[in-house]
């Protein structure tokens, strides 16, 4: 299915991009003593699943679209409860 | 003619099974033998298909060479080797799959238990005893 392939490709590309960024930022943070930027990059890593689901959404069948939206809604709620409550 | 499924692999239990049927053939056992050579593998699903296929190809060549030697020795003592097969995967599952296909009169396997393996997990022979419908000859080392 095309939605699966787009999902997989988004996961793969964004993971390696963020992994590279994380490594560079971590090395710099050792000299600058700033941990916040590294933590933010780690937070970006946790957004990959949601981002990949969003990219797969337009190509998914109707029933699967509904499931993707439900999972994304759960993620938004969990994010809100974790950081803003 | 009786049909035997002789299970070989790259461990001690394969040698044990081979030795037993070899000795029995020397004492007069006759029949048709199907040789199954199992390479126990658990390749995770995230290995690329090309790499997996090339690993199977390399292992297949090595295993066929070994099987040819076993085949000659068995034929020298009077057994008829009807076919040979190399399988990659779980020991018990691959035997059961082939059993369904060729319906042998007797399956010959070796048994060599290690202390650590005994602690964690079932021996494939236990699974065969539970699930196989054929007669089993389990040869102890």
């Amino acid at each position, binding site marked *: 299915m095309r939605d699966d392939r787009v999902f997989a490709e988004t996961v793969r590309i964004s993971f390696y991009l963020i992994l590279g960024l994380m490594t560079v930022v971590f090395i710099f943070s050792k000299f600058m003593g700033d941990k916040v930027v590294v933590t933010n990059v780690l937070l970006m890593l946790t957004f990959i699943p949601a981002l990949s689901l969003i990219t797969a959404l337009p190509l998914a069948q109707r029933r699967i679209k509904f499931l993707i939206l439900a999972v994304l809604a759960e993620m938004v709620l969990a994010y809100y409860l974790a950081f803003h409550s | 003619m009786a049909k035997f499924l002789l299970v070989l692999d790259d461990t001690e239990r394969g040698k044990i099974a081979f030795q037993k049927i070899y000795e029995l053939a020397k004492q007069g056992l006759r029949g048709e033998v199907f040789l199954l050579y199992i390479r126990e593998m658990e390749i995770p*699903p995230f290995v690329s298909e090309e790499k997996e296929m090339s690993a199977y190809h390399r292992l297949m060549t090595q295993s066929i060479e070994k099987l040819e030697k076993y085949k000659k020795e068995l034929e020298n003592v009077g057994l008829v080797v009807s076919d040979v097969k190399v399988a990659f995967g779980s020991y018990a599952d691959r035997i059961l799959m082939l059993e369904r296909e060729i319906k042998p009169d007797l399956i010959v396997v070796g048994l060599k238990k290690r202390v650590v393996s005994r602690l964690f997990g079932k021996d494939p022979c236990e699974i065969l005893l539970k699930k196989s419908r054929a007669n089993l000859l389990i040869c102890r080392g």
Partner: protein
Amino acid sequence: MEMEAFIFLFSLVIGIIAPLSGVGGGVMFVPLLTAFSGINVDYIRGGGVMVALASSLTSSPTAIKRGFTNLRMVLPLILISNLTAFGGGYLGLYISREFPEGKHYITLMLGLLLAFILFIMSTTERVEFPEPKGRDKICSFFQMEGECFEPSIGKDIRYSASNTTIALAMFAFVGLVAGMFGLGAGWANVPVLNLVMLLPIRVAVATSMLIILLNTSIAAWVYMAKGAVLPEITVPAILGMTIGSKIGAELTLRVSPRIIRSAVMFILLIAAATNIIKGVMGIAGIT
């Protein structure tokens, strides 16, 4: 810098042996580090969740492209386990922070859980190609099925989910435990997918990875929000695990898993015993 180097090497070794032994990296990372290092259990669990996420991000794309799993298979399961994983993350941090001996209780529970995991791993048989039952309503509605080429038998196989209602209840519990201990959940997902939902073993492993990918980020946010994800632990751990798992995957093409699996389980048994002893001593006030 010494701690970062230690964590990197530790994760590299775990990354190498995880694919070889069939025991997940997350399951090894948290209990072993808790047992054999002086790092606070909360930070280890925070790192463990991120390691589990990174492992699944590395491995899932290839498994999906090969057809071993797909979104239709996992989304109904995720919907349930996401909720419990989130609750589990909160519950774990609540116990360790709100009670005076909370972190010792968590260490003790981690040891007991690991012993239970070892019990499951050593008593359940993995079946390569289980016979599927008829499709149930959930499976038919969401088309929880797929097709892939299985090189070991040289042909395409079709797979579909069975017993989905029972499996959903099981995944709710697994999500809770995984979130609570930051373990990843392959140790429980794979037997449920293989023996209850009757999926072929490689499909079960791939589906478990995709489940972990989709529900670990939720648990990770709980740990991040509470300040339990330390870059000094998490970054070297992710790097070590990513490099290690690439090496480990190559080695699976050459090495038989049986002996390595037994050796890893023996080490985990020692880790379980150490965590139980540490937890009991901590609760009793003996340090």
